[in-house]
């Protein structure tokens, strides 16, 4: 695929200064419209949020280390679980994927930048304010949001504390940011593909992000509607969710999960995309079943709109509703299975090597699948009555979100870091990060399955003594996992500062436009579109 145009890009690199390069100073970051700068800011922001949300998880695990109340009071505990969830979902995972999209989508489709660069700047820069507002509410009288990240009414309306308006406002800002980001991704992919880059030639990361962006545009307004109704119920005497005024608290859950279920796919489809880039590279073999991957992603996205009420089996839905949502949920596991089979078939009879991104990807495939299995179990309505709102569910969604989404982000970061910085990261340290994370994350989340089956509800600050031993083990796993992530920061920092120079292709089996530009990727790439054969 190498062409003369790409060589032209290389020479642009040397002529950066007269062909507006990166401006200097703090203003560069505030005013930048460069997709690489904005991508970096998204990634750094999400890393910071990952540690703040992680610190809250440490508080939770410290309190749960032993039965009894030792460290925090129940109300503060509830604030920790709530804000931990909100930060990890909206502050860590989603911005990390947007950051990766910013960096990689233009480079993968041969575009010079995102299509709407000023909006790109906006959609990033309003985010820190959203989280400042959210975090500051923790210090207000009565504390921050304490009703769970799902903010079920009427706990979040009539019975919530005074800072709820700040919570609503901050969720609105997050939503606006996501929608702007999604519009940008769609417009970029639809309009700025290099000549010859047909839809069915796009790398899977681009495909999964295109579909994710449509999901975002479809459901973020629903979330905005939900928080707005919470706002008016609490402060302006409406009764959307209050039976006394003709409303219905269960309707809140329908609206929330109509957003919430597609949201979980928003957090996993780009992960599928990343793994679909990495596995072929280190298998030295083309992705198996490219088109079925695309169709599977699209069908998962469509099905994700008709399974929301599987989060609500215990609310007292009619039998017909329970059956419908059970069947649909079971169905969604079929295209998800297809993806896993395709990755395994890609590895089959390849020539495998196990560099750090591949290690994270393989861990992703195994552990995400375990999360998928518990998801399939949760789909069976009669048994869900037993699992629902226990640690079994906590185990399930942490397997798909931590060893799923976050492991894929780690994999992607290690995969593209040399391209971004021009340096190979410290491989020994990165491997240590991988192994420590892999072991501790399983010590952390695997026992939760047992605790849940034994009957421990989620979101409680104290528990019956029979759960004590397992909770102590879980907490130790939690602290170890938390500490291991510091290694990641060290690896990234060292890699930015220096290290062995890498080639343009970086990884032996890597294919695609992003590996044809120089390493480190110059400030402007593909100012003239490459030609795709």
């Amino acid at each position: 695929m190498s062409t003369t145009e790409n060589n032209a890009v290389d020479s642009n690199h040397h002529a950066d200064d007269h062909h507006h390069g990166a401006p200097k100073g703090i203003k560069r970051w505030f005013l930048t419209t460069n997709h690489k700068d904005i991508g970096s800011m998204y990634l750094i922001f999400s890393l910071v949020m990952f540690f703040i949300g992680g610190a809250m998880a440490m508080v939770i695990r410290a309190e749960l280390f032993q039965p009894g109340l030792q460290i925090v009071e129940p109300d503060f505990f509830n604030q920790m679980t709530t804000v931990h969830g909100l930060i990890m979902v909206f502050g860590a995972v989603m911005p990390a994927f947007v950051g990766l999209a910013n960096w990689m989508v233009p480079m993968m489709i041969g575009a010079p930048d995102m299509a709407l660069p000023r909006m790109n700047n906006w959609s990033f820069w309003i985010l820190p304010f959203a989280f400042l507002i959210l975090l500051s509410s923790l210090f207000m009288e009565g504390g921050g949001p304490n009703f769970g990240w799902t903010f079920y009414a009427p706990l979040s309306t009539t019975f919530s504390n005074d800072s709820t308006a700040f919570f609503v406002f901050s969720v609105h800002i997050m939503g606006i940011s996501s929608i702007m980001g999604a519009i940008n991704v769609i417009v970029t992919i639809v309009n700025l593909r290099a000549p010859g880059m047909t839809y069915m030639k796009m790398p899977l990361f681009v495909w999964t992000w295109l579909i994710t962006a449509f999901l975002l545009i479809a459901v973020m307004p629903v979330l905005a509607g939900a928080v707005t109704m919470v706002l008016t119920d609490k402060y302006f005497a409406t009764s959307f969710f209050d039976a006394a005024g003709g409303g219905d608290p269960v309707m809140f859950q329908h609206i929330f999960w109509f957003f919430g279920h597609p949201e979980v796919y928003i957090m996993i489809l780009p992960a599928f995309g990343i793994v679909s880039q990495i596995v072929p590279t280190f298998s030295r073999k083309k992705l198996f079943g490219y088109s079925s991957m695309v169709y599977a992603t699209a069908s998962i996205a469509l099905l994700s709109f008709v399974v929301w009420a599987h989060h609500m089996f215990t609310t007292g839905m009619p039998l017909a509703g329970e059956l419908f949502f059970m069947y649909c949920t079971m169905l969604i596991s079929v295209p998800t299975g297809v993806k896993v089979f395709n990755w395994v078939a890609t590895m089959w009879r390849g020539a495998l090597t196990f560099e750090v991104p591949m290690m994270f990807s393989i861990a992703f495939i195994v552990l995400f699948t375990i999360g998928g299995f518990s998801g399939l179990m949760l789909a069976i309505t009669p048994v869900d009555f037993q699992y629902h709102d226990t640690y079994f569910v906590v185990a399930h969604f942490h397997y798909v979100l931590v060893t799923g989404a976050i492991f894929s982000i780690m994999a992607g970061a290690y995969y593209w870091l040399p391209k971004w910085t021009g340096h190979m990261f410290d491989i020994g340290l990165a491997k240590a990060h991988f192994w420590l994370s892999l072991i501790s994350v399983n010590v952390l989340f695997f026992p939760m399955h047992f605790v849940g089956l034994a009957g421990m509800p989620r979101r409680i600050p104290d528990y019956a003594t029979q759960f004590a031993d397992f909770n102590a083990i879980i907490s130790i796993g939690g602290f170890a996992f938390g500490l291991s992530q510091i290694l990641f920061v060290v690896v990234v920092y060292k890699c930015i500062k220096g290290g062995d120079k890498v080639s343009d292709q970086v990884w032996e089996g890597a294919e695609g436009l992003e590996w044809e530009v120089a390493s480190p990727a110059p400030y402007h790439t593909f100012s003239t579109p490459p030609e795709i054969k």
Partner: protein
Amino acid sequence: MTAKQSSWLLSAAVFANNAVAEEMPLNLTKGVTEISRNVYDLHMIIFYICCVIGAVVFGIMFWSMLYHRKSKGVAPANFHESTKVEILWTAIPFVILIAMAFPATKTLIAMEDTSKADLTVQVTGSQWKWHYKYFDHELEYYSLLATTKDEIYDKREKSVNYLLEVDRPLVIPTGQKVRFLITSDDVIHSWWVPEFAIKKDANPGFINEAWTRVDVPGIYRGQCAELCGKDHGFMPVVVIAKEPAEFDKWVSEQVEIAKKAKEEEQKLLAMNMSFDELMAHGEKAYNANCAACHQPNGQGIPGVFPALKGSAIAIGDLGAHIDIVVNGKPGTAMQGYGKQLGLKDLAAIITYERNAWGNSTGDAVQAAEVIKYMSGQ
């Protein structure tokens, strides 16, 4: 020191006070009803299905990781699609799922059939307790956590049923179909007894149904399963299943006791309790019923639950004070206690609130005054 010894020491240090706790089961309970056993079977079937699929998929993957390494000098194959294989591995899971859907549907239909019940109990959640009302008998009562604050704050050894014990458990007969009508007075709660495989949300303003038929007499423990505010972790469910004859005996005893208490209360109306008596009783009753929100020191939690120390109501108009305690304030966490507490408790609590923590109205509130505000009941 061997690893075993040191791990023993560690657990001895950390768990010194749980030596008596029962062993945690590692799997879902089979429970004590036909439904709960069906649910358990479904759980095991789907679990085994996952194990088999996992073994096959991960087996192939690990094989590949062992034998298809570049370091073994293999050259990568060229294939990257096969319509046949892809159709096959879409179809097989599909068939497995359809096979799974049949027993699941059957069990679900049985679980939702609440008709022809022998006994009906209304279960009402509120922050943070359960209320049980027998439709077929003159009997209703609240059920509160029995674990003490001292145990929770590690000041006393934790009892065997720490956090899973209540003052008055629900009692039901064995062998009979018991229907539960589940609702809430404030936020959403969820009534869960694992041994019955019942978990149903208690939604304010709506009534959900569930049922059970328990085979074996015994004590069954569960918890509120839906986040319901500060003390969500402290509202357990305890159900005792008794043989029908014993159950009937228990019901008539309870009805009798309730009747006696009513009569006592009538007598109380004619009497005056002394200020000291009221204060002493009031402190106890306040700490049991009100301190969760307004705190033992009367200072509440700023921004969430108002302070009673120096509050305009607690040191102001007596009528307004009695009214909010007896009837609550709709649309807030302040529930009405007229239904839950006896006149003596109410009079004592109100007296206590008006004269504790530096409040000093000097009022000694009597049962006869409180009852005037009970008319709304």
